[in-house]
């Protein structure tokens, strides 16, 4: 399961009292909308295309110096001694930091039972932090790193499942197991398999995928006495920076200011505080100068997370009529050197109606970079066996792949044991199939040339995407009717700021141009959760609507009183409150505010709790057309259709963009991306963007269509929206794999499906 979000959500849910329905009037769903639902450019487009947007590394402060970090070059080693003498005398060097420096003995990784330290002499993977320097220029800082003399005792290392053998080198005192297997059980799988007409079992594998955001990780820090300002490339100024750094450095929360107005991509890799941020803060305190730290691309490939590999065996039973009778999944995976979630099973227990389910997941530590949450953690890997198995079952019983998925559709969340507020999965499959031309495509005769064409589908979902409290949005109306939204939420590229402005404008009845937003500065903007889990839209946006509604209620109440008309008769027009029935009755916003002794109206919108007895999740069905060259093994993705149900679409332009992007990353996961570790040294081989490949303009399908399914969900929240960034990424790779099977008649169970994978499969088919 997506342990990271589960734990995060639980920490909030545990503390929230189910609130009684508010006595105030209920916020009604919008009727016809003026702005919401349109395809509009972003409110911060100018900043992002002009260069005005200031990202973390763009901060240049007077007297600023640059930090660089020395990392262990070995897969497994013990630091015996560190000699910084020569480095300290290098030109431009201002300070050197090691684990022995004052304040640097800080526990790290593993949560409540720390597994390491900021600088731990026991280095458990290639990249563990050993020392750091600060110098006048980054060039001088990197020179100084080379002058630090470290004596390492190289230790035997382990990078695969042999870590569980008794003779394996031990990473942690408690051994290499990550703990008891986590199991999910429903019904009785033995009974289910006995009832099945067909039972199939297959082992699947997905590789380590790395986030590779275009903006590398980094921070700029500055002390003013005991007050700390941190600019950080993060997915959350509160939970990602403010809280953890205040804890690490023992500071009161309001002595720390964390800022991230613009962020250049993360995909889960910037959900937690980086060691580099704390290192920069310690160097800055030591030198009394602002410090910038920017990781190199190589460092980000090694040290700031990845999607763990998964080795999954799935056994499935089905009746001749297509009814699933049992699903049994085991997954053994490694989070790398330190604890992190590796679960993939949720979808297997949730996506299709199945009375008998058994999932068992376990893990082991290895001398490799630690995993972090990665776009829909566990879901693209879990989708890979499930959605290929659905096609395998369909073929065995002679049923169409869409038909078998529809046959097992459910509108009930089996893991939460409650109905969904809505599900558009059925429509994703049927509308998507229509747009894709599924029937015709699958019926077409296969070519006899060496280029084989194939068509595939896969369904998917995401377990979060509902959003839940707490989120806070402050809405302020100026005397000229202009609106400013303040929220601590990030806009990590998803368009959060734009949809917030659209929703506020919609609710208040003002033009979009009248709304501005200030975000992600803990000194200025109120609390919002991490931007991850596709939770920001459904979490924050209802809070924005509520705040806007409260401002409107206040100003309309004053208008109703001043004009002697009912509130329902009023509208906001050209910065005045006007009676619809007698338009001559009006008061400007400024007149109303001055009459009440204020120059602005401010309201706080909080996110209301979700319905207690219903679950909210987004769904998707993706379709792929591929050409497989049976001579070279190359796969060309010719066409993609993504049908996605994420509740109400606020901005069709940014929604489509999310889906294109999620599917493109899915294409990378399915066909291109994998971390390669050298078996001789345990070091990473493809530690740059040339050798770790991500999809380029030449890899993507030019013919790519997005379909938005709106289930008109009036229960999930007061805007009716669900998250989209993650579900849009989940089933793409599986759809491509199914299309490849359709093309060549052999199943690529191991990802990524590289040309050599295809050639091996074809030669096995020929031989076998």
């Amino acid at each position: 399961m997506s342990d990271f979000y589960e734990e995060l959500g639980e920490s909030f849910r545990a503390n929230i009292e189910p609130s009684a329905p508010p006595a105030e009037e209920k916020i009604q769903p919008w009727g016809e909308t003026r702005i919401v639902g349109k395809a509009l450019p972003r409110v911060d487009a100018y900043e992002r295309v002009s260069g005005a947007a200031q990202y973390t590394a763009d901060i240049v402060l007077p007297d600023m110096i640059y930090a660089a970090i020395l990392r262990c070059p070995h897969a497994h080693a013990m630091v015996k001694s560190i000699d910084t003498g020569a480095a300290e005398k290098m030109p431009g060097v201002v300070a050197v930091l090691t684990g022995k420096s004052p304040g640097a003995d800080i526990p790290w990784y593993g949560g409540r039972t720390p597994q390491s330290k900021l600088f731990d002499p026991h280095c458990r993977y290639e990249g563990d932090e050993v020392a750091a320097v600060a110098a006048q220029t980054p060039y001088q800082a990197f020179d100084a790193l080379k002058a630090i003399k470290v004596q390492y005792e190289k230790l035997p290392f382990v990078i695969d499942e042999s870590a569980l053998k008794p003779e394996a080198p031990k990473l942690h005192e408690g051994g290499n197991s990550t703990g008891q297997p986590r199991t999910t059980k429903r019904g009785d799988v033995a009974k289910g398999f006995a009832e099945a007409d067909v039972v199939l079992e297959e082992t699947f594998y997905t590789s380590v995928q790395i986030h590779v955001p275009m903006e590398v990780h980094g921070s700029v820090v500055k002390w003013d006495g005991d007050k700390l300002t941190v600019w950080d490339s993060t997915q959350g100024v509160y939970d990602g920076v403010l809280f953890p750094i205040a804890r690490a450095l023992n500071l009161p929360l309001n002595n720390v200011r964390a800022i991230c107005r613009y962020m250049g991509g993360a995909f889960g890799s910037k959900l937690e505080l980086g060691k580099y941020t704390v290192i920069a803060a310690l160097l800055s305190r030591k030198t009394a100068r602002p410090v910038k730290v920017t990781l190199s691309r190589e460092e980000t490939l090694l040290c700031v997370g990845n999607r763990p590999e998964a080795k999954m065996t799935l056994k499935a039973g089905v009746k001749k009529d297509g009814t699933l009778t049992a699903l049994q999944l085991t997954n053994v995976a490694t989070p790398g050197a330190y604890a992190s979630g590796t679960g993939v099973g949720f979808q297997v227990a949730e996506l299709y109606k199945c009375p008998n389910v058994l999932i068992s997941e376990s893990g082991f530590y290895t001398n490799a970079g630690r995993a972090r949450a990665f776009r829909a953690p566990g879901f693209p890997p879990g989708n890979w066996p499930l959605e290929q198995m659905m096609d395998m079952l369909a073929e065995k019983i002679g049923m169409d792949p869409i038909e078998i998925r529809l046959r097992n559709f459910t509108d009930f969340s089996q893991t939460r044991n409650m109905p969904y507020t809505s599900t558009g999965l059925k429509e994703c499959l049927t509308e998507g199939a229509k747009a894709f031309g599924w029937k015709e495509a699958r019926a077409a005769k296969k070519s006899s040339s060496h280029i084989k064409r194939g068509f595939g589908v896969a369904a998917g979902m995401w377990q979060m995407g509902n959003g839940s409290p707490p989120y806070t949005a402050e809405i302020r109306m100026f005397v000229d009717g202009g609106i400013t939204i303040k929220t601590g939420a990030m806009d990590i590229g998803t368009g959060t700021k734009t949809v917030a402005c659209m929703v506020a404008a919609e609710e208040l009845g003002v033009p979009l141009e009248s709304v501005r937003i200030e975000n992600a500065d803990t000194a200025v903007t109120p609390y919002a959760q991490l931007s991850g889990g596709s939770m920001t839209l459904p979490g924050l946006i209802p809070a924005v609507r509520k705040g806007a509604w409260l401002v409107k209620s206040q100003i309309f109440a004053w208008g109703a009183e001043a004009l002697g008309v009912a509130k329902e008769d009023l509208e906001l027009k050209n910065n005045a409150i006007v009676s619809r029935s007698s338009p001559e009755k009006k008061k400007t916003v400024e007149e109303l505010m001055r009459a009440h002794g204020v120059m602005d109206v401010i309201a706080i919108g909080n996110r209301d709790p979700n319905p207690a007895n219903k679950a909210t999740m987004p769904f998707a069905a993706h379709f792929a057309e591929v050409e497989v060259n049976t001579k070279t093994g190359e796969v060309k993705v010719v066409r993609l259709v993504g049908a996605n149900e994420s509740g109400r679409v606020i901005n069709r332009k940014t929604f489509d963009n999310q889906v294109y992007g999620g599917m493109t990353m899915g294409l990378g996961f399915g066909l291109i991306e994998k971390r390669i570790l050298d078996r001789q040294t345990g070091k990473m081989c493809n530690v740059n963007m040339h050798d770790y490949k991500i999809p380029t303009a030449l890899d993507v399908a030019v013919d790519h269509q997005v379909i938005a399914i709106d289930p008109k969900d009036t229960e999930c929240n007061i805007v009716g929206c669900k998250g989209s960034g993650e579900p849009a990424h989940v089933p793409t790779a599986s759809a491509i794999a199914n299309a490849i099977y359709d093309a060549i008649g052999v199943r690529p169970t191991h990802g990524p499906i590289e040309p050599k994978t295809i050639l091996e499969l074809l030669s096995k088919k020929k031989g076998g």
Partner: protein
Amino acid sequence: MAVSLKDIPAASAQEIEAVGNTVTVNLRINGSSRKILVEPRWSLLYVLREVLGLTGTKTSCDRGECGACTVLIDGKPRYACLTLAVEAQGHEITTLEGLMDGEKLGPVQQAFAEEDAFQCGFCTPGQIVAVEALLRRNPNPTIEQIRHGLSGNLCRCGTYRHIFNAAAKAAELRKKGGAL
């Protein structure tokens, strides 16, 4: 895209004056001349961003693999991370900031804004400069020419579909002589 400077003659040694371990270079950037002291090993990217404060150009891979630092040198797209500042002397350098018309967006920038041709926006300066370069050498590119023109600029958000649209729209806007 080609990224080496081999077809651009480097400034001769006599033109570069050394002071200690730094040398003086004259850089012509976005129409203005800047005379600064640099270490010979400093990249043009480092000088643009950290010395001159032109932070529109982004650092991402810092080794010529992603295109986030793309600038125009004598009108051609170049990776600023693979160009030394001393190599850039004597050439006309144009950065993202140089595509603006005062506070107004240039046509390629306008097209990117309208087509939502970015998500996080970090590769965007490089994408915009690459499209500008493409349209300077080919004002009417086909979709295949657009894809090849942008093949040296990676976008991890996967916004390529919208970037292709923006490139096509930018071609139209440029013909009309600027932004709408």
